Structures are given as C-alpha cells and as structure tokens.
C-alpha cells in the first residue's frame, strides 16, 4: 500500500484493539487489507445527478462483492470505493486522479465527460494505474496508445455505425425504402458524431442531403429547424443534449416537421432520457434514439436495477449501467490477478472475458487499444410513455413502430 502512515486517534485505537485481539486465533486476526478504488465523477453542479447515478452503479457492484465475501483470491479482502468530484473541469479531474492514486487507489473509474477522461487517463497512464472508463464517448480516449485505459461503453463510432445500421434494418423490416437523411446536431460532441454519421450513412444506403450544426446554448432554434424542414429528407438524424433537445422537439412540433420516416436520435442526450417523457408527454411519443441502454431481456440486469432502486431510492439511469459494468470488470480482474500490483491487474483486465454483465452484447473483451469490442448500442423508442428497446431483436422488449407517426399522434 502506498498509503502514507499517519498516527491518528483512530489508528491508535485500531492498534490497541488489534493488540487485545492477540489472544484470538491467527486466522481471524490477519484480516487482509482493504483494496482502495477511486471513482471520479461530477458530484456537484449541473451534471451532479448523472454523476451520482454512475458512481452509485460502481458502489452497488462493490457492495455486492463485499457482501459475497470480498475478493476470494486475496483472502476475502474488502474493496472500498473512494468518490471524488471533478466538477466537470478537466484540471480538477486530473488533480483528483493524482490524489486518489497517491492515496493508494489500485484502479480508477470515471468520469462522465470525455474532456475530463482525456486528462484522468493520462494521469493514470503516467502512474501505471489501470483506469476503467465508466462513461465517456469520444473515440480518442482509447486511440492514444495508452496501456492502462479500458472502456466498456460503446464509443462515438459505435453509436454512429450501429445506429445507422439499425435504421436501415428498420426500413428492411417494415418494407420501406428511405434514402435521404438530414442531420441536426449540436456543435461540440455532436459535430464529432456527425463526421461518423457521414462516414457510415452511405454504407447503409443513406444519402445525407444536408446537416445543420447548432449551439446548445441558443435562445431560439426556429431558423435551424426551419432549414432542416426545407431539406425535405426522408429521415432526420438528431444529436444533442437534454435541455436543447426539449426546445428542439417543441420547435419540430410547432413547425410541423414530419419526415416520412421520422426523427431519430443518434446518441441523443434527450430522447433516451425519462425526463424527456416527463416534460413533453405525448410530444415525445414514438421518437427513437440509438444509444446505450441496459439489456432489458437479461434477468440479471433486471435484478440489478431492482437492487439499485431499492438501495439508492433513485431511478436507475442508462448511465448507471456503465458504472456497474466497469466495476464488474475490475472486480473480476482482481480475482484473476490475485494481486493489487498494477502490472498484474492491468494484465488481468486486458485478458477480460466477462459474459455476466447488464448491457446488451456479447462478453466484455478488450482490443489491444482497451476498447470493448462487443460494446453494443441499441435502438430505443418511446411507446406509451416508456422507453423500449426495439432493435437488435435479440435485446428488444417491444416491436418498432416505423415509419414514426407524424404529429397527428397528439390528437390520439
């Protein structure tokens, strides 16, 4: 342990108790040391609820492991999660990563922000400590040749390539042939995503007739949405965040934007969010989004969701999946490594083949860049006010309604 040795009243007390326990059989006395794991997420500020939902996913996996007897291969050692707050600031994230590693964390989890993750993975790499990415979508995170960075979650390329592929599958399934696509996307993360959509759309027979970048901080999106409408495409692909999504969808409605195929989100922060349904009611009905999600047909996933909601008295979020899954990978690797030594732990993580997890897709297996090759995006649709998975069929809990009905739905 790299933990500095300081004498506080607590450690003195522990030693006193330890000394008194000398008469007890040796087996009981030699409790293995705790294994520290650091988690860095936005715990204050506007992203705090999301940050907590990811961090609590990590915590749940650890609590379950401890309750089941800890890490068997390390004599039943308990794992302790130390949470840190990056406040959505890359420099704060870097400092917290540094602090956690000095405190003795054997691995890091985080961070719900691509910009922050770029920094924290760099710190982890420098110290040679494994960093499992919980939520962060930028491809670049695993493209820098880092040995200690691993990501379970689908990246931007997965979102775009699989999303576009599902839309083509929908067309085939329903016997409709849509070709033209207009893309409305916000101009930071959405711009990076757009370049991937533009790359994969032609491979699935789509022709992008135009795209409109917009600022998520705009006070009005009427002109932007009017331009998209004027493109008269069969389908609209749409990516953005939550708040702008609420404004955008109402503007679509006001301007009667009704593409023949419908409006489909790609990695949209709004259209797979329960708040979208809560705030807009029927306006949100039938909207689709290709995004990450839990596996609705897995009994294990359903059990975890129940346990999460009972434990934290909060709704399970799609982000929680990745906190939980990344932590499962770490716990599994600790067992196989039978060591907290960073190099051995890294080796064990790199050789992961974890089939028992709560996301769709095959076993978690990392490529030599540290990206989970089986990361699977699903296509969700809002039906009767609930978010349902409609594709791939292996994970679907509802039939897709496609082409997506127009605004007449509001009268029904």
């Amino acid at each position, binding site marked *: 342990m790299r933990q500095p040795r300081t004498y506080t009243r607590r450690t003195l007390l522990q030693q006193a108790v330890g000394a008194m326990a000398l008469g007890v059989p040796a087996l009981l006395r030699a409790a293995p040391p705790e294994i520290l794991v650091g988690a860095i997420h936005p715990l204050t500020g*506007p992203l705090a609820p999301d940050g907590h939902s990811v961090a609590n996913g990590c915590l749940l996996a650890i609590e379950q492991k401890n309750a089941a007897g800890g890490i068997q291969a390390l004599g039943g050692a308990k794992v302790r999660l130390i949470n840190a707050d990056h406040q959505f600031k890359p420099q704060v994230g870097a400092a917290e990563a540094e602090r956690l590693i000095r405190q003795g964390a054997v691995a890091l989890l985080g961070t719900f922000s691509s910009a922050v993750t770029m920094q924290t993975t760099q710190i982890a790499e420098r110290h040679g400590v494994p960093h499992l990415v919980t939520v962060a979508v930028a491809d670049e995170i695993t493209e820098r040749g880092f040995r200690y960075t691993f990501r379970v979650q689908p990246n931007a390329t997965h979102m775009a390539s699989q999303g576009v592929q599902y839309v083509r599958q929908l067309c085939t399934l329903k016997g409709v042939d849509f070709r033209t696509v207009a893309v409305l996307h916000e101009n930071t993360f959405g711009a990076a995503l757009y370049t991937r959509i533009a790359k994969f759309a032609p491979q699935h027979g789509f022709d992008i007739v135009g795209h*409109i970048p917009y600022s998520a901080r*705009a006070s*009005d999106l*009427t*002109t932007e949405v009017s331009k998209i409408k004027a493109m008269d495409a069969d389908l609209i692909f749409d990516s953005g965040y939550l708040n702008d999504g*609420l404004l955008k969808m109402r503007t679509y409605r006001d301007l009667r934007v009704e593409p023949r195929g419908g409006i489909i989100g790609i990695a949209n922060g709004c259209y797979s969010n329960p708040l979208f349904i809560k705030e807009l009611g029927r306006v949100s009905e039938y909207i689709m989004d290709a995004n990450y999600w839990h596996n609705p047909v897995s009994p294990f996933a359903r059990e975890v969701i129940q346990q999460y909601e009972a434990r934290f008295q909060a709704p399970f979020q799609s982000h929680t999946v990745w906190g939980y899954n990344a932590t499962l990978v770490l716990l599994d690797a600790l067992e196989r490594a039978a060591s907290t030594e960073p190099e051995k732990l890294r080796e064990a993580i790199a050789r992961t083949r974890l089939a028992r997890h709560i996301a769709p897709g095959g076993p978690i297996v990392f490529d030599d860049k540290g990206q989970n090759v089986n990361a699977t995006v699903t296509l969700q649709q809002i039906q009767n006010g609930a978010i349902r998975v409609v594709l791939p069929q292996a994970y679907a809990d509802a039939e897709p309604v496609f082409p997506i009905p127009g605004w007449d739905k509001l009268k029904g």
Partner: protein
Amino acid sequence: MGTLLLQAILSGLLNGGVYALVSVGLTLIFGVLGIINFAHGALMMLGMYVSYWLFVLYGVDPYVSLIASALGLFGLGVLLERLLITPVLEAPEHNQLLLTLGVALVLENLALFLWSPDPRTLTVSYLDFAPMVGGVMLSPPRLIAFGVSVALTVLLYAFLHRTDVGKAIRAVSQEREGALAVGINIQRIYALAFGIGCACVGAAGTLVAPFYTIDPYVGGIFVITAFVVVVLGGMGSYFGALLAALLVGLAESVAAVFIPAAMKQIVIYVIFVLVLLLRPQGLFGPGRG
C-alpha cells in the same frame, strides 16, 4: 427560401422583443447606479421558476403570475440594493462586479440545490398549438412574449419621461450631485431603479417560460446577449436598447439562414466589435437618458 427567410425574420424579431425587456432592466441599473449587474441572468432564472412553481403547484396561468414574478423580483431587487449594493457603491468597480457575480453564484447554486438541475418545461395548454400562416409558423407564446415585452419597455420609457419619480430617476442618472441638491432622495431612487430593473428581467423570465427550457443556468443564455444589446444601444439608453435588441434578434436569426447556425452568434459579436470601434457611444445617441 422565401418562407424560410420570412420565418427567420419573424422569429428574430420575436426573440429580439425578449432581449429588449432583459436589456432595459440592465441598462436602467447601469444608467442610474453605474453598476453592471452580473446577477441579471440569475434573476431572470428566478422569474422563470416563480411562474413555473405557481403553475405546477397552484395551476396559476403564467400570464397571471407575471405580476407575481415582477413584484417578487422588484422586492428582491430593492432588498439586494439596500443590503448589498449600497455598501459597495463607492467601492472600486471590480468590487462591485465581484459582488453582483457573487449574488449570481449564490442564486444559481441555491436553485440547483432546491430544484435540481433537471430541465423543466411549462406548457400552457391553450397556447400549445402554433398556427401556420402562408408557410410561416406563428408561435402564440412567442408572440405574447414579444407584445408584452415591447409594451413593458415602452411603458417604462413613458414612466421615466412622464412621471415625477421617473424624472427623478433620470435626474440621478444624469447628474447625481444636482439631483442631491434639489432634494431628491438618492438612496430611494437607487433602490427603486434596481428594483425596477429586476422586475423587468423577472417579467422577461416569466414570458419566455412557456416556450423555453427552464434550468438554474438558463439566465445566462439571454443575458449574455443583453450585455451586447446594452452596449450597442448606448449604455443607459432605453430606446437604444429596444432598437438594438430587435436588431440583434434579427441579425442572429437571419444569419442562421445563410451561415452554419452554430456560428450565428458570431454575427452579433462582429457587429458588437464594429460598433465599439466605430461608434463607441453606441448606435443610438450618446446614451445616459
């Protein structure tokens, strides 16, 4: 292209009306107290939440709760002026800036703590249908926001020019010592002007609530533009602020037709920089009254 441009012109003007109401509050406070109120955005956010909660909890129509948010923000403004602004009026400008910025941080974080960062929408059912006229969408809540904003701005203008109190406010903004000499209670005028400025932005908050997304940081979106408007219109000029607000709204919206929409705000800043270079006193007159 025809209807697209027409739609852009209309929505630009409508948005400009809201900018106007936000800006006159800002320009009034600057004109009279000489303070740049960085808490303006947070106060607008409070106006939005006042109407949101009155609607959600008691079913009060936002156009009725307009009175509550304007009066509430007026009261809060007077209180803020008395307790926080008065003590720093003679302090260096950067202290005043830090103070109003601090007020903004406190209000935003309080909202975050009390109401969570979850975005909220306020849907007024009888306005929830936007008619299409000749291919151009007329959004009722936006039309109302525009109409009421412009009416309130004109009303404020009339108040400042026609009433004794209004004239006293203008007197203080133009010549403080002189106003003092003729027996105007300057402390009262300061509190009043700050309160009216806050009431304006509170009303603006209520007016955008039915069509915009409400969250603790929403104020900044409108107020950043309002700062530009105030400078464009000539710091402290009400009529200038109104015209500049419409101009900025229009420029922003029409620019989005011709250039990538994400860059539309660049147009505003280009105009802003040009005005600062060529006509530093603002587009409309020398300001100050």
